[in-house]
């Protein structure tokens, strides 16, 4: 079975026998991997009924909750990790959500598509239109992505809010790094993943 590569990276950051909350869990893939391989007690959150149904098919715990509301169902410090994989850009209030994640989890893991990638920059520069790329395939009027950011934006954001970055991975879509990405991550990185405290 083909796993989403970025989820494999995230699962490698999660220690076995821990408790994980996965926000925007999609079809429950990450939780399924974690449950099977790492004996993780996990709960997924999603607001799309299709994803709820798919997660139930995978026999993972899933809760239909809107990430734009608060997460008051969850006690402070009740999870080892709270994960937000490639969903940061769809929420209404990213800062409030990250604060909620930090309240609930001892550590959080956040990943997002890098708007600063050269393909986006070139499109905006040459066409003068909102970029449409492999990672961001929507036209401006149909996109669910309302809070896109670049890697540099995110660093500034963490600094400003005093979020401590413990680990980072900036890669292409296949979760690989290369010389160019290492030299100029904000220009050549496609997916950025951070472990934050």
């Amino acid at each position, binding site marked *: 079975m083909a796993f989403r590569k970025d989820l494999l990276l995230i699962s490698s950051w999660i220690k076995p026998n821990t408790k994980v909350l996965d926000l925007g869990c999609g079809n429950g893939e990450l939780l399924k991997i974690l449950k099977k391989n790492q004996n993780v007690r996990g*709960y997924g959150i999603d607001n799309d009924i299709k994803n709820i149904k798919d997660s139930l098919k995978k*026999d993972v*715990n*899933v*809760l*239909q909750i809107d990430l734009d509301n608060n997460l008051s*169902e969850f*006690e402070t410090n009740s999870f080892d990790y709270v994960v937000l994989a490639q969903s940061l850009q769809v929420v209404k209030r990213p800062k409030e959500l990250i604060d909620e994640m930090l309240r609930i989890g001892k550590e959080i893991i956040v990943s997002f598509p890098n708007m600063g990638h050269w393909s986006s920059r070139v499109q905006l520069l040459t066409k003068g239109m909102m970029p449409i790329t492999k990672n961001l395939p929507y036209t401006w009027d149909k996109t669910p992505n309302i809070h896109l950011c670049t890697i540099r934006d995110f660093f500034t954001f963490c600094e400003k809010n005093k979020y401590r970055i413990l680990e980072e991975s900036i890669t292409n879509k296949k979760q690989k790094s290369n010389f160019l990405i290492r030299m100029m991550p904000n220009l050549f990185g496609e997916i950025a993943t951070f472990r934050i405290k």
Partner: protein
Amino acid sequence: MNDNNSIGLVVPKLVKINKKLNLESGKILDNYQLKYETYGVLNPNKSNAVLICHALSGNQHAAGFYENEEKPGWWDNMIGPNKPIDTNKVFVVSLNNIGGCHGSTGPISINPKNNKIYGSDFPLITVSDWVNTQKELMDYLNIPYWQFVVGGSLGGMQSFQWALQYPSLIKNSIIIAGALKLTAQNIAFNEVARQAIMKDPNWHDGNYIEKGLAPKQGLALARMLGHITYLSDTSMKEKFGRDLKKSKLNFNFDVEFEIESYLRHQGEKFVAGFDANTYLLMTKSLDYYDPVKNLGYKIDENLKKTKSKFLVISFTSDWRFPPKRSKEIVKLLLNSERDISYCEIDADGGHDAFLMVNKDYFDVMKNFINQVCDGI
């Protein structure tokens, strides 16, 4: 009856439990009988039994047809071959709870102590009492544990109570349109319903049957009120709007709007098959249910004893037991680190949505139950 997915003809059964039942109220029933139905086959290792718990006005007849009857059981859309509760895979047990009026011991039964109809002498029954009687039925049927217990509304409370009361005898608990306890508003509606019944001139302190009477007006009113709270504003608007029975207003108090006619019909239909004392008892049982208060901090301890998984389902338009109420159950179970899934089905049907066909709702049930069945 030509429905290929129908369980077909069913015949209710009766079991007499010759065992004392100590009720939560302190009263005792020396013995009692339970009317029940079963669908499907119990497998050789007895691992596929499931229990259906009915709500306020339900009974044992959840699916299939009785001889010479047109109308199927009350949850026939959910239970049957290839339906979400798939009788090809699971062995379904559905009973009429005690205090009911469809064959199990209740206010219309004869009190063995004086050979008179119980009437208002029938003791009040709680959710916990019901779970104890359901356990007796389980033992009688030689069922070692329930693969799942499921119910909507008051039935959902029983499903949750099973996990608290017999934590090792339940593998999965499905709680639909449920709540941990009633709100003041819920109790208020129940109280108006009770008053309607007890103010009926034919009430006679609950002993109307021996006088050959019944508080029909009151019970019909109670049902009409209840019915309004089971529907949503949207569903009423869609179904009836402001449609008139005749083309113009009559300027009197006869039935003029379709909704009036519908409610009166619902009231009358209900009265023909339901006992007023049972209605009172069921509403009281709802009012009393409050496991968090009863168990206090021990509720976490109790919940941690069960390995049961939970599925909690609510409906967006349900204002009797709105999603907020279900989320209280979710929060409690999350705190106790139980396996729990929750979904909020987009549906216009109000509280009664749990009885209606809805693709998302049925898919969720199906996917969850299929996972359960894969593990049998």
